[in-house]
């Protein structure tokens, strides 16, 4: 019989939530009360699922299990990585800890997203230092983070300090049932290909593609607990900013719904600059071919090219772009691509859904006048 997990009969109302949480079919409800079977591996997944607190895990925090999955959640960032970790944890029969640097005012939203506990790291160090020290002490099986600025700075540091595998911007996670390993798919050669990798070592570290992992769970019935970990010896290395200007970062090309892009066929920087007005009209952003960037018409951040990455817009409008192999690979995931180009035999014509074979600058003017 399981020794660590206990059913408090007086609290159990036989609702069956624990049955659904158990990946090993090791819970049953008999005469209105939960009963744990011999096959229980004491993963602890049922404990936070119980809405009445009738399941208790001895020796550890009720919400988390040693060797569970940690999710690093910088302040003010989406909780989608918690939801992704929840799916993996359910396959593996383990738990999810949302790791934060400050006591949360509303921990219930972390639980609703899929966390079993909120782990507050306290100490004089920066986020990377705290996370490294905490991971050394508690040995999570994996550390996840949504691939935004802070996580992409902190988590590689953690992987380097622990000597762990690091998977950057995974866009698919494939946990092995009942095991601790997680295979991941990630972009390869800047998104033209994808590769599946298996991390090795004790604590694998992953950042998750924010587009592929955008969903946040909203299970209001989930319960959890807040736990603090004091780390006075953690090392501070990274500088604090002297100031922060709260500005919205331009929507990255990879996340834009509409991309209006231009190339040398527009004829001049002045014509290229008009793309911004059309992008604003359509609620999109401006992209550019490599030639337009090289001409100084656009910033490198606007480059549409698979050497930078694949983009996923609903609509891609290309004015005066001939369509190199790398450009066309970058727009392969666009739902609809429109080419405006008056040259007869250019690469983009082979990949566009619609083609307007007229002077790009004139068509742009006509669209703006519309």
């Amino acid at each position, binding site marked *: 019989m399981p020794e660590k997990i206990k059913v408090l009969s007086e609290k159990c109302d036989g609702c069956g939530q624990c049955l659904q949480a158990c990946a090993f079919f090791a819970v049953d409800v008999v005469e209105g009360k939960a009963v744990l079977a011999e096959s229980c591996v004491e993963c602890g997944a049922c404990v936070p699922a119980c809405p009445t607190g009738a399941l208790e895990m001895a020796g550890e925090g009720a919400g988390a299990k040693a060797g569970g999955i940690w999710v690093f959640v910088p302040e003010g960032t989406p909780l989608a990585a918690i939801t992704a970790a929840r799916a993996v944890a359910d396959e593996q029969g383990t738990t999810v800890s949302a790791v934060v640097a400050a006591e949360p005012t509303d921990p219930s939203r972390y639980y609703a997203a899929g966390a079993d506990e909120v782990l507050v790291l306290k100490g004089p160090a920066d986020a*990377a230092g705290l996370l490294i020290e905490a991971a050394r002490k508690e040995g999570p099986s994996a550390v996840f983070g949504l*691939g935004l*600025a*802070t996580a*992409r*700075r902190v988590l*590689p*540091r953690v992987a*380097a*300090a622990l*000597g*762990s*595998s*690091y998977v*950057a*911007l995974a866009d698919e996670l494939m946990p092995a049932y009942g095991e601790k390993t997680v295979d991941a*798919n*990630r972009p*390869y*050669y800047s998104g*033209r*290909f*994808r*590769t*599946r*990798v298996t*991390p*090795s070592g004790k604590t694998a570290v992953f950042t998750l593609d924010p587009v592929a992992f955008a969903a946040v769970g909203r299970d209001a019935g989930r319960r959890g607990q807040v736990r603090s970990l004091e780390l006075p010896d953690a090392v501070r*290395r*990274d*500088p604090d*900013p002297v*100031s*922060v200007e709260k500005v919205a*970062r*331009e929507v990255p090309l990879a996340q834009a719904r509409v991309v209006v892009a231009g190339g040398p066929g527009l004829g001049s920087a002045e014509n290229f600059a008009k793309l911004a007005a059309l992008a604003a009209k359509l609620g999109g952003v401006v992209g550019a071919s*490599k030639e337009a960037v*090289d001409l*100084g018409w656009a910033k*490198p*951040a606007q*480059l549409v090219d698979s*050497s*930078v*990455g694949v983009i996923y817009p609903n*609509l891609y409008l290309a004015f005066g772009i001939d369509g190199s192999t790398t450009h066309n*690979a970058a727009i*392969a995931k666009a739902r*609809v691509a*429109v080419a405006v180009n008056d040259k007869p035999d250019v690469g983009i014509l082979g*990949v566009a859904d*619609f*083609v*307007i*074979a*007229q002077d790009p600058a*004139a*068509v742009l003017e*006509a669209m703006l006048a*519309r």
Partner: protein
Amino acid sequence: MKAFVCLSVSFSTWNILWSMGALDTSEAQRELPVMDRSALAMAKQAGAEEIIALGWVQATDESVFRQGLAFGANRAVRIAQPLDEAAATDPLVVASGLAEAIRKLAGADSAPPGAAGEPAKAEPAKAEPAKVLVFCGEASAEFGRGAVGPMLAELLGIPVVTSARALEAAGGVLTVQAWEDDGVATFKLDGPAVVTVGADAPAPGKPNMMAAAKAMRAPIETIDIEPRPASLRPRGVTSNEQRRRGKEPVAGSNLAETVQVLFGRLRERKVV
């Protein structure tokens, strides 16, 4: 202080062949990624006494070092040991090798380099934090998508600022503007650090002819670093190849009508 700029390779015009899960990159053309150019520009702005372009790329990709020299590096050093596919795409392997190389080169005199292909002068690794500035183009061709910079910082025991978009140097202090989750943060750095350079940092255009010609004659040094074992096991490659689309011409009797027809079709597809 010496500055190191970590160079990688961008596959600019691909002829990468994919068949049965294996890739053949032999026909692909290589060049220095745009963000690595930005990193070289920032190293110059930082007023480093010497800029060393350092990379762990194949000998056949030596052209990126020549471009690095043309864009302002004083020396170019290539890690000589070849990496297999698994190791080359594992940011921890790359960062560990670069960190070891930086420690060795930071300790060495900036004496005239040996002839191309000969190991550079080096000293044993030191445990204390490295006294260097390191610049990396972020999310360029390295497969860690911006991971090598922070890993280097950890392995060198120095701070890191990521996604830098601008840098100024005054009185021995670097003022760096960089993207954080909630906006643009300003950092002051007065010592060793790693700075990863984001996509919206200014990039130099083309080098002038003199610099390019000088770079063609400059030696590319090599340094020996034994790679650590790869921590990621590749399990196969799948293609994200473009799907062929049915080209549909859009035309009207004049431009205004053509535009109207197009937007009608886009509305049918529910994309506007």
